[in-house]
Every structure is written in C-alpha cells, then in structure tokens.
C-alpha cells in the first residue's frame, strides 16, 4: 500500500476483538503505526496510514475507522522544521545534549 500522489490519512482502526483486528491486518495489510491497544471491553485498535480510498476499504463488519489527521499534510508542515545547511560546520560548533550537566 504505497502512494506518492494522494494524501495519506492517519486513521484509528477499532475492531470488536483482537481476532477481528488480526484478520483485518492479514487481509488488508494496511501500513500501521505503533502497536495494537486492547481496551477493557475487549475491543482492539491500531493506528493505520491509508489514502481515503484505502481507509474506506478497511471498514467492515465489527470494524470502525475514524480519521485522526492528514498525515501527509502534517509531515509536509513538519518538513519546515528541518535544519537548513549544516549547523555543525563551524569548527567550534559541537552538539550538546538536552540534559543539564550538573
């Protein structure tokens, strides 16, 4: 399931039980992020990354799909938060970790 043209949505796929989710992952093979989470009521959910069309195709008996965000748009916005050039090029520029040295 790869697509370079259509936006990829982050969706939450919730199945009524673990076996239903396992079957869905086996049959539809969606791109997933993180691991499955089981709720107290026995339902089991996972985040998936899919085009709108692919997300619709994940819906079935015992499964609900809700959109969280447009992951492509978020990722594109985040690309603006990537450094330009080389901040460590100056001879005295050394990386510092985020811990307080004390």
């Amino acid at each position, binding site marked *: 399931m790869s697509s370079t043209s259509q936006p990829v949505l982050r969706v939450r796929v919730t199945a009524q039980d673990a076996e239903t989710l396992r079957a869905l992952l086996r049959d539809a093979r969606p791109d997933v992020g993180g691991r499955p989470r089981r709720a107290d009521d026995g339902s089991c959910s996972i985040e998936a990354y899919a085009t709108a069309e692919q997300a619709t195709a994940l819906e079935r008996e015992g499964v609900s799909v809700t959109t969280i965000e447009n992951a492509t748009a978020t*990722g594109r916005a985040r690309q603006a938060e990537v450094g330009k050039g080389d901040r460590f090029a100056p001879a005295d520029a050394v*990386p510092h970790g985020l811990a307080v040295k004390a």
Partner: protein
Amino acid sequence: MTYLNITEVDSAVTSLATAYPATSELIDLPEPSVEGRAGHALRIGATPAGTHDCAVLIGGVHAREWGSCEILVHFAADLLEAYEAGTGLVYGGTSFTGDQVRKILDELELVVFPLVNPDGRLYSQTVDPMWRKNRDPAQSGGDPDRIGVDINRNYDFLFDFRTAFDPAAAPRVSDDPSDLVYQGPRPFSEPETRNVRWLLDAYPRTRWFIDVHSYSEDMLTVWGDDENQSLDSAQNFLNHVFDHRRGVPGDAYAEYLPKSDADDSKVLAEQFCTGVQGVRGRAYTPMSGFQLYPTCGTSDDYAYSRHRADEHKGKILGFTVEWGDQRGGFHPPWPQMERDVLDVDAGLVQFCVSTLV
C-alpha cells in the same frame, strides 16, 4: 532548534569525535548507502576499543521516524560532555551522578550509529514525509512505487517467511517490492543492513543492541516471531520440524528463550522504562516484540539469534525502543520532540548504568 537534516546528523557525529578525542573515535562504515552516502558511527569509551563489553545503538533505520537520530546524537553528546566536565546528567526528574557517568565511559564501550538510512531520511524530509524504506530501485523495474527495501526486515532471521510461519500467521513482512515492509530479494541485500551487521562483527564484545524506532512508548525485547517460552529448547527458529507452525498466538509453538536471557532482557527493559518515567512520568511498556502479529528479519531478533546460529559469535541481548506517543505520531512538533529526546536519553543512560551492576 529544529530536526537535523542528513548532513547535520553526520556532521554532528564527526564534530563529537573531533571535540572529544580522548573518549570517542569516528567509525567509518564500510559501505556507502544505495545513493552513495558515507555513514559514520561513534565509539565512546575512555579505554582502548575491545577493553570492555560493548553496547551498539542504532537509529534512523525507518526514514519517517525522524527523531531517532536526534535521540542518539544527544545521548552521545550528553555522555561525552558530562564525562569531560566531571558532572552528572539531569533529565527532568531522572538524574545520574558524575560517578555513574564516569563508570559508563570507563567500564563500558558504546557504539552509536545514529543514521543507518540517510537516503530514506532525505526523501522523507524533503519529498514524501511518510517514506519508511531505503531508496533502493534495484527491484522496482523502473516503477517509483516499487522503490525501497524495509531495512528492518532485511536481516537474516527467519527470512524465508513462507516456510517459517503458519499460513494463518500473517507476518508483517512482504516479498512484494511495492509493499511498505518489503524484505528485499535476500537477507542483507542492502548496504545499510550490511553496515549494521559489520558493526556487530567488528565489535565482538557487543553484548547489548538497541534499535531506536517510533512510535508507541514501548521497550521491546526478543522475540518478534512468536510468543516466548523457556521450557522447550527444541521449539526454536533453527528447527525445521516447526516450519509452517510459527507466528500464531496461543497455539503449541512458542520461541525458546532461556530463562536467564529472558530475565536479563526484562530487567534491562524495565530499567530503561524506569529511567524514562522519572523524567516527566511517561509510562513506557517493557514487553516482547510479538504483539498480535509476528515479524521476521528484524534487527533485535537477528542480533540475539546470532549466537544460536553460530556458536563462535557472542551473545547479544536485542532491544527495540518505540519512542513517542500517539499524539505526536511519526513527526511530533520539535518542542514535543525535545521532550521525547529527554525521556529516551534518560532511559538509555539508565540502561547503560544497569548493564554495569
């Protein structure tokens, strides 16, 4: 601050090696990436290479999991700076004394390789943010949708998944180049994967291996192909009697893990999570890699499996960090990423401290 681009990750490693010549050393990885980029790792330790047991840490394997590189660069920088200054390290509510920092560099060897997949990271940071694999076009037949191999399916562990697993197991791996988890044409087909193997071979005293990924706030231990058990040593990945039977939860087959290794892995994973939680309360979960569905060809299972497949190789306990929560997804805003860096770096330092007791 912002995320590091690929030039900066490499430049950070080089700068640290230059700034701390007594306690670090630049490692040239033997193979350039598919697109020809050279990779560098950093050996950290106050004693000559090979003096002490070694932990190898890698990151930047999956292109879209950007923050893994920053976690490892900052981890290395923290340790080197604190050692030289004779200070401890404070990560929010988790802190380490100067003696603990000194002990890590005096009695342990660390090899940190923050960017295994530079081509993929560049593509993710400049073109498609959701890109995961490397950028190898060899199996694509010229189709851009078939470019790339999932490096964390390309290691030699149950690579022949159609033979290894029960047909109902649905391992998260594929032999179709258009798939997100394409394993490649054969184990170690990719130069990026071979560089990691080279590190484990070049540092034969490696006893711990940590692969930094995102997301879900977990610290995973072996195995990923099935549930673990410590009672029946015959049920193992080398035994062909169990071909076509692996990967289904709750059935007769479970992957053998000697109890002492299971216990040691669990303690270290728990210690990592304790270090993380102290910072600001994030509760990471220590658990084995097998959750609902199996995997194969992953780095942590490969690292641990080496000593079983070849008795001349040392035993390496393998781990995979899955940093970050669902809110941030693969690309948290940088201010949130800084909090994740603090969390995970505290966990990694705690992990190192715990290997020494």
